[in-house]
C-alpha cells in the first residue's frame, strides 16, 4: 500500500516538472505540444477511491495551470477525466474491469491502446476547447487536438514500454 502511495507521489511530481519545464516548450511546428502528464491519470490505480483520484487530478491540473498561466483549463480537463474514467475503463476492458482485477500491464494490447486513446483524446479536446473558449475556432481546436493527441499517445506508449513492470 505504502509502495503505491510513494510511486504515485513520485510520478505526480516528476510528470509535473517534466511537463512544465520541458514538454511545454517543445512547440513542434509552432503549436504542437505533448501533454504527457495525462500518464498520471492513465496509470493511477484502478481500484482506489474515486474521490481521492478526483482531488489529485484537480491538484495536478491546477499546478500545471499555475505554471502555464492558463486559468483552470488543465484542472477542468483532469477532473473530467477522473470523473469519467470508470466509464472509459468499462468500455475498453469490458467485464474484467467489473471484478477489479485489471492491471494496465497485463491487459490485451488492443484494449489498452483503445483506453489510452480515449483518455488522451477526451482530455485534449476539452483542454483546447476551454483554452480557445469559443466555438468559432472549432477548426483550430480540432487541429490542435488531433496533432497533440498523436504526439501525446506516442510519448505515453514510449514511456509505458520504457517503464514496464518487471515480469516474474
Amino acid at each position, binding site marked *: 500500500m505504502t509502495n503505491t502511495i510513494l510511486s504515485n507521489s513520485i510520478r505526480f511530481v516528476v510528470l509535473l516538472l517534466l511537463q512544465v519545464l520541458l514538454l511545454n516548450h517543445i512547440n513542434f511546428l509552432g503549436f504542437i505540444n505533448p501533454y504527457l502528464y495525462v500518464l498520471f491519470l492513465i496509470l493511477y490505480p484502478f481500484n482506489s477511491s474515486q474521490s481521492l483520484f478526483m482531488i489529485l487530478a484537480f491538484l495536478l491540473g491546477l499546478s500545471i495551470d499555475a505554471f502555464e*498561466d492558463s486559468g483552470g483549463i488543465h484542472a477542468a480537463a483532469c477532473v473530467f477525466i477522473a470523473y469519467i474514467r470508470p466509464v472509459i475503463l468499462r468500455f475498453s476492458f469490458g467485464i474484467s474491469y467489473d471484478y477489479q482485477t485489471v492491471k494496465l500491464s497485463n491487459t490485451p494490447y488492443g484494449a489498452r491502446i483503445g483506453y489510452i486513446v480515449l483518455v488522451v483524446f477526451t482530455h485534449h479536446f476539452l483542454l483546447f476547447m476551454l483554452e480557445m473558449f469559443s466555438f468559432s475556432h472549432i477548426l483550430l481546436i480540432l487541429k490542435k487536438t488531433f496533432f497533440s493527441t498523436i504526439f501525446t499517445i506516442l510519448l505515453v506508449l514510449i514511456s509505458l514500454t520504457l517503464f514496464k513492470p518487471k515480469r516474474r
Partner: protein
Amino acid sequence: MQQIFNFLIRNKNNILFLLLLGLSIFLTIQSHSFHKSKFISSANFVTGGIYKKVNNIKAYFYLEDYNERLLQENNILRNKISNIPDTLFNDTFVDSTVYEGIYEFRTARVINNNYSKIDNYITLDKGRKQNILPEYGVVTSQGIVGIIDNASANYSRVISILNSNSKINAQLKKTNHFGSLVWNGKDPNIVQLVDVPRLAPVKKGDTIITGGRSLIFPRGIPIGSIVNFKLDENGSYFNIDIQLFNDMTNIGHVYVIVNKDKKEIKSLEEDTND
C-alpha cells in the same frame, strides 16, 4: 436529516466532481477577463522560483546571442550620441538633476515565455521588491513585449502582445493615424493593427510605433512593419498585418518602463471625471 446525509454520501463523487469542475471553470473564466487572475499564476513564489532556477542554467546557452544584441544596441546608441552636438560649449545650460525625463527604465530577465497558445504570458525575475508594479510597460531594444499585469514580491507576470486580452495603442510612424494592436492567435511574428481610419496613407513596409496616448508606453517605440492590409467589412477602417521587429519566441532581457508622472495624470483625470 438522515436522508440528507444518506443522499450526500451516496452522491459524494458527483458532488465533488461538480464542485471541482465548477471551481476550475470559474478560474478559467476569471483568467479571460483582464486584471483578474491574481491567485493561480506563474508569478507566485513556488512557480517563479522553479522557473528562475531552471532559467539560471538555460541562460548560459544563449549568452552569445544576448551579447550580440547588446552590441547592436550599443552601436545604435553610440551612433546617436556621436551625432548630438556638444552641449558643453553652448550658451544654454540644462541642469539635468532638476529636469529629468518622465520615463525611467529598469532591466529584468525573462524566466518563462509562452507563444503557442491564444493567451500568452511572460514571467520576469523581478517584482514589487524591485519596484516593478502592474501596468508598467515592457520592451526590448528591438520593440515592445507587453504590459505587466501581476506582480508578487520577487516575480512579475507580463501580458504578452501575443494575448487575446492585450490591446495597445499604436500608430503609423509617418502620420498620426492610430489604432489598436491586437493578435489573432495564428502566427507569433505577425500581429494586427485594427481600427485605423481609411483616410490613413497605409503602405506595405511602413513602420508602426507606439502611440503615446496611454500612460504605459512613451511615444515612438518601434513595433513592426506593415506586411499586408485590407479594409474591414464596413469599409471604413483598415485591418493591418504587422511583422514584429521583435522575435517574440526568443526574448532574453527586457526593459520595464516606469512612467513617473502616471499618478499625477491619473488623479487629474479622475478629478475631472467626478
